[in-house]
C-alpha cells in the first residue's frame, strides 16, 4: 500500500536563549503512514511531537531529512491540497462568525461557490455546530473552537488529516464525539495522523503508533505488534474475607467498604481463590484479566530512556 506520509531521517535543532545555544529537538525521525489508517504519534511532553508535525506542514524548516506526502515533496501545493490540520489550542479570528471563517478559508482552496456553501453546512453539522454558524468565534468555548478547527481542517476534503493533541481539554462527552468523528473519517477512506498523550483514546482508535522520546522514535508498529496479549495479572474484587486469609495468593491492593481488591499474578493462585470463595461463601464482585495496556508499554519504554 502506498505511503501517505513518509518521513526519513528528520533532524531539527533550535537556537534558544539569549546567547543562542543549539538544542537538538529531532534527532533523526523516520516513520511512514499507510493509506486509510489512523496513526498515533505518542510521546511525553517536550519529546518533539508538535515539532515533527510542524516540519511536516512546513511551518518549521527542517535541517536534514526528507518528507513526502502522497509522494510529493511536503511543501508542494499538491501536497497541501490534500492535507488538513488542526493545531493544539486552536485560535482563530475572533470577530468572524463560524460560517464567515469557514468561508474565508474555503476561498483559499478556490472552490466553487455552491460547492463551498454546501460543504460548510455539512461540516458544521458533522462537528455538531450547525446552530452556532452565525455566532462570533470569540464567543466560542474551548470545545467549540476545537470543533470549528476540525471543520476547517476538513474543508478541502483532505486525504490526510493531521491532528495535534485533538482530545486535550475536551470533556469525556466531547472526547467520545471526536473519537467517533475520527473513526467515521477513516471509514470515508481518509488517513489520520494524530498526536496525543491520552493513551486510552489512542488505544481505542489507532491502528498503528509510533512513540517518540527525546527526539527519537523508539517504537513503531501496530498496536497488535507492540502490546503482547498475554495476561499480566488478574484483578479480583471480593468480599467476605480477611486479609490474612488471602495472604500469599496475590498482592492486596486496597480494602474499601468490606471489599478487597486483589492482584493475582499466577494462574494457580486464581484457582485457589475461586475455590476459597466457593467454600467460604464469600462473594466475587469482579474478575478482570488485565493485559498489557498501551500505558504500561509507554511508561516502561519512557522509563528506559
Amino acid at each position, binding site marked *: 500500500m502506498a505511503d501517505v506520509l513518509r518521513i526519513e531521517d528528520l533532524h531539527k535543532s533550535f537556537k534558544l536563549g539569549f546567547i543562542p545555544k543549539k538544542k537538538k529537538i529531532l534527532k533523526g525521525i523516520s516513520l511512514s503512514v499507510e493509506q486509510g489508517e489512523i496513526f498515533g504519534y505518542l510521546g511525553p511532553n517536550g519529546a518533539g511531537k508538535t515539532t515533527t508535525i*510542524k516540519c511536516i506542514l*512546513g511551518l*518549521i*524548516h527542517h535541517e536534514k531529512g526528507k518528507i513526502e506526502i502522497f509522494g510529493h515533496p511536503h511543501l508542494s501545493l499538491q501536497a*497541501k491540497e490534500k*492535507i488538513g*490540520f488542526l493545531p493544539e489550542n*486552536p485560535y482563530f479570528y475572533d*470577530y468572524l462568525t463560524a460560517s464567515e471563517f469557514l468561508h474565508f*478559508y474555503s476561498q483559499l482552496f478556490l472552490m466553487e461557490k455552491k460547492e463551498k456553501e454546501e460543504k460548510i453546512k455539512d461540516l458544521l453539522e458533522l462537528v455538531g455546530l450547525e446552530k452556532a454558524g452565525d455566532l462570533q468565534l470569540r464567543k466560542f468555548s474551548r470545545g467549540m473552537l476545537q470543533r470549528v478547527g476540525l471543520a476547517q481542517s476538513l474543508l478541502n476534503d483532505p486525504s490526510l488529516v493531521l491532528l495535534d493533541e485533538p482530545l486535550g481539554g475536551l470533556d469525556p462527552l466531547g472526547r467520545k464525539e471526536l473519537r467517533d468523528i475520527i473513526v467515521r473519517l477513516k471509514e470515508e477512506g481518509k488517513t489520520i495522523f494524530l498526536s496525543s498523550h491520552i493513551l486510552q483514546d489512542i488505544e481505542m482508535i489507532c491502528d498503528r503508533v509510533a512513540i517518540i522520546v527525546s527526539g527519537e522514535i523508539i517504537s513503531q508498529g501496530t498496536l497488535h505488534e507492540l502490546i503482547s496479549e498475554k495476561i499480566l495479572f488478574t484483578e479480583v474484587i471480593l468480599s467476605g474475607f480477611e486479609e490474612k486469609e488471602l495472604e500469599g495468593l496475590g498482592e492486596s491492593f486496597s480494602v474499601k467498604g468490606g471489599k478487597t481488591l486483589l492482584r493475582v499474578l499466577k494462574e494457580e493462585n486464581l484457582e485457589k481463590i475461586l475455590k476459597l470463595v466457593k467454600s467460604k461463601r464469600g462473594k466475587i464482585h469482579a474478575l478482570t484479566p488485565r493485559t498489557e495496556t498501551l500505558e504500561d508499554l509507554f511508561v516502561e519504554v519512557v522509563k528506559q530512556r
Partner: protein
Amino acid sequence: MKIKAIALNTFKEAIRDRILYLLLFFAAVCIIFSRILALLTVGDRVKIIKDVGLTSLSLFGALMAILMGVGLVYKEIDKKTLYTLLVKPIHRYQFLLGKYFGLVLTLFIMLSLMSLIFLAVIFFHTFRVEWQILLAILYIFLELCLITSVALLFSCFSTPILSSLFSLSFYLIGHVSWGLETLIKKLRPGTGKTLAQLLYHFVPDLENFNFKMEIVHKLPIPPKIFLFSTLYGIFYTLFVLTLAVLIFRKRDFI
C-alpha cells in the same frame, strides 16, 4: 484570487481597530481647529487651513500606517491564527501581500475620510473646491504605502514596540533626508559621515512625495517629478516587500 481573500479579511480586521478611529478623530480635530487658528492670522487665512490639513493627513496617516502595520504579521504569529492559514495551499508571499493590500485598502478609506473633512472645511471657508489638493493627497497616499511596507517588514521579525520605533524613525529620517545631504557635505570624514551617507542612501527621500509647499502656494510642479516620484515610490516599496517576503519565508513558527 487568494491574495484578495486575505486582503479582504485583513481589511475587515483592521477596520475594527479602535486606534484608527482615535487617530481619525484627532485628525478631524486638528483640521477643524485650524479653522479657528486661521482667524488669528493677518492676511491669507486659507493657507493656514491648508498647511494644517495637509500636515495632519500626512502625520496621522503615517501613524495609522505604522501602528497598524507593525501588528499585521506579529499579531498573527503571536496569536497563532497563522498556523491553520499557512498550511493551506498558499505561498507565504501570497499571505504577506494579502496582509499588505488589506492594510493599504484600509488606509485608503481612512485617508479619503480625512480628505473629505479637509475639503469640506476649505469649502466652507472659500466656497470653492480646490482639486489640486487632491494631488498632494495622492502623493501622501503613495508615501503611506511605502511606510506601510516598511512597518510590515519590521512586523515580520520584531515586536510591535520596537517595530513602531524603527518605522517612526524611518519616517522622520526620510523627511530629513535632503537635509542629510547638506549635513554630509559639512561633516568631517569619519564615522559620523559614513553613517550619514549610509542613511542617505538607504532611507528613502520621503520629501519626494511632499508637495505641500507647491500646492499651498499654487506653484507649478514640473511634470517630470510626478513620474519619478511615483516610480521611486513603487520601486522602493517593491524592494521592501521583497525583503519582507524573504525574511518571512525563512521564518520558523515554533
